[in-house]
């Protein structure tokens, strides 16, 4: 048999620049630099550039980023989750009600909340893979159901639309375990008051990136999003992979719910609603394709950072914060437009 290797002279070898430009998050990274410089220039208070300012915008970015990374992974796997925002409220209320109404210890309540969130994520995923309905619809239904349950159950149990007194019982005694839980989820560190959420955000980004690029499961995520039929044909457990991604998204929402609960020591029934689109914006700005199969975890993180900078930067520029939404809209369009240009220019992929 012939072992000569056919060299196709019509294909140029790829330069290292092309390799860098092929990264899905490169557009977002350059965008983040532009946004950072922009807000550092228009800043009226002189704090945006400082560590104090950095602590502020990373605080906003971190709670978005924790979920945006999960949403990015799910989008790479070819699915959406519109219930990711409302799940912040649901899990915060779940933990809060367990603690205040049923006197469950703070740590057991947190543990049960993650189990609850895993169950919701499993339900989302299971419904999507068994019914074959678009995840957009399935999770939209979950979104509205949870929104109703959040209000309904909270009103029935507390006669108000919020759960309060997570830190202290009615007798004024600090609840056992609250202080340690607060340290883990909601404390600040250094003189600049960086939030613990930032640590969670960075750690989860690193883990998600390693899982996505360096493990079997990460390979499966790309495959089920890119072409689930091809994936199934080579023996990838498509259903299991998708369900696990939905569980991860719900559990990351639960983490943010717990973080908010520990910070505010209370929870509004409407908490988190409308945030689901911010996570999707972050993931898309970070280079994830809406059609799945392409993107990165770090992209979701960079997208969240841009959004955090926008929220805080506009306040520091002493503009009306109403303009934040316009800015998000423009950023979303500009980012997706440049991403697609870069992809066409450097990927050369025929799709």
């Amino acid at each position: 048999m012939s072992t000569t290797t056919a060299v196709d002279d019509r294909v140029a070898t790829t330069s290292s620049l092309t390799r860098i430009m092929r990264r899905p998050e490169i557009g977002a990274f350059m965008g983040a630099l532009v946004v950072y410089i922009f807000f550092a220039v228009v800043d009226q208070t002189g704090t945006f550039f400082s560590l104090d300012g950095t602590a502020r915008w990373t605080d906003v970015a971190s709670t978005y980023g924790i979920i945006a990374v999960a949403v990015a992974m799910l989008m790479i796997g070819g699915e959406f989750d519109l219930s990711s925002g409302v799940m912040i409220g649901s899990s915060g209320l779940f933990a809060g009600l367990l603690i205040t109404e049923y006197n469950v210890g703070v740590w057991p309540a947190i543990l049960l909340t993650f189990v609850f969130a895993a169950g919701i994520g499993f339900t989302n995923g299971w419904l999507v893979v068994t019914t074959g309905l678009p995840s957009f619809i399935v999770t939209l239904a979950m979104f509205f159901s949870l929104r109703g349950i959040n209000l309904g159950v909270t009103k029935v149990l507390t006669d108000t639309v919020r759960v309060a007194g997570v830190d202290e019982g009615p007798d004024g005694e600090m609840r056992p375990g609250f202080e340690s839980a607060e340290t883990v989820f909601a404390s600040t560190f250094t003189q600049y008051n960086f939030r613990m959420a930032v640590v969670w955000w960075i750690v989860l980004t690193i883990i998600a990136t390693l899982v996505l690029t360096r493990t079997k499961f990460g390979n499966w995520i790309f495959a089920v999003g890119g072409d689930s039929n091809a994936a199934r044909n080579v023996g990838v457990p498509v259903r299991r992979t998708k369900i696990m991604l939905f569980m991860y998204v719900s559990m990351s929402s639960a983490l943010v719910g717990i973080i908010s609960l520990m910070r505010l020591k209370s929870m509004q029934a409407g908490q988190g609603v409308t945030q689901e689109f911010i996570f999707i914006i972050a993931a898309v700005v970070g280079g994830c394709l809406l059609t799945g199969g392409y993107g990165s975890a770090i992209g979701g993180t960079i997208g969240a950072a841009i959004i955090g900078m926008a929220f805080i930067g506009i306040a520091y520029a002493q503009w009306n914060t109403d303009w934040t939404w316009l800015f998000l809209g423009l950023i979303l369009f500009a980012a997706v437009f440049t991403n697609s240009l870069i992809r066409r220019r450097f990927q050369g992929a025929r799709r």
Partner: protein
Amino acid sequence: MTEVSTNKPAALALENVGKRFGSVIALQDVSMVVPQNQVTCVLGDNGAGKSTLIKILSGVHTPTEGQMYVNGEPTTFNSPREALDNGIATVYQDLATVPLMAVWRNFYLGNEPTKGFWPFRGLRTKYAKESCKGEMAQMGIDIRDPEQPVGTLSGGERQAVSIARAIHFGANVLILDEPTSALGVKQSGVVLKHIRTAAESGVSVVFITHNPHHAYLVGDNFYLLNRGRMLAEYTKDTVSREELVKAMAGGAELDALAHELGADT
């Protein structure tokens, strides 16, 4: 090429196999033998039952009648995974690779090489990239950069990735579903060469096609499928290319068609 020893059981055999979907008879009374290390071609026009036959061989469907044999043993597959575990790999026409994923990721998809202990079990990325490049080079294809997405490869190269992958993971029987139908003349030639290479390296190939020219170039045995029945059976020694083309085109029907179109042949 390798001599086939007669006492070795066929890699795959069907005996009077039929498949019904409700009242529709997709396949009826189909018998065929896939000898070891040979290329067995299944020829048929659209609607002849080729897809159903592939799906039975690859474990997607279970036949409603008849018996399948793997290495002489009566076998029933309930899922594609069971067929894979028995060394029967199927390369589907266009469902074989994920276009946006890197070549090496596609190559090892579903069989990723890992090292370490959970939760620190990681992919052996460096090894995977190198061995993928090596395997592809053996098939005569130089993939410059294993990191490039499969979508940037040509159709023939993509088929080669699937074939190389199936062989690498120990397939004894390789089922190829119309591997040349979407390709140009030169690319088809490359794929046909891979089919021959695969058979010579000890794999039994089932080559499903509607192109008798391609089949005749690489095949050892030929089965002609028409309207769900096995119409004819040839070996390379007993049939010429012209006969095969004519049989495939429906012989007399082709003469009638030529007459109808007013063409003098």
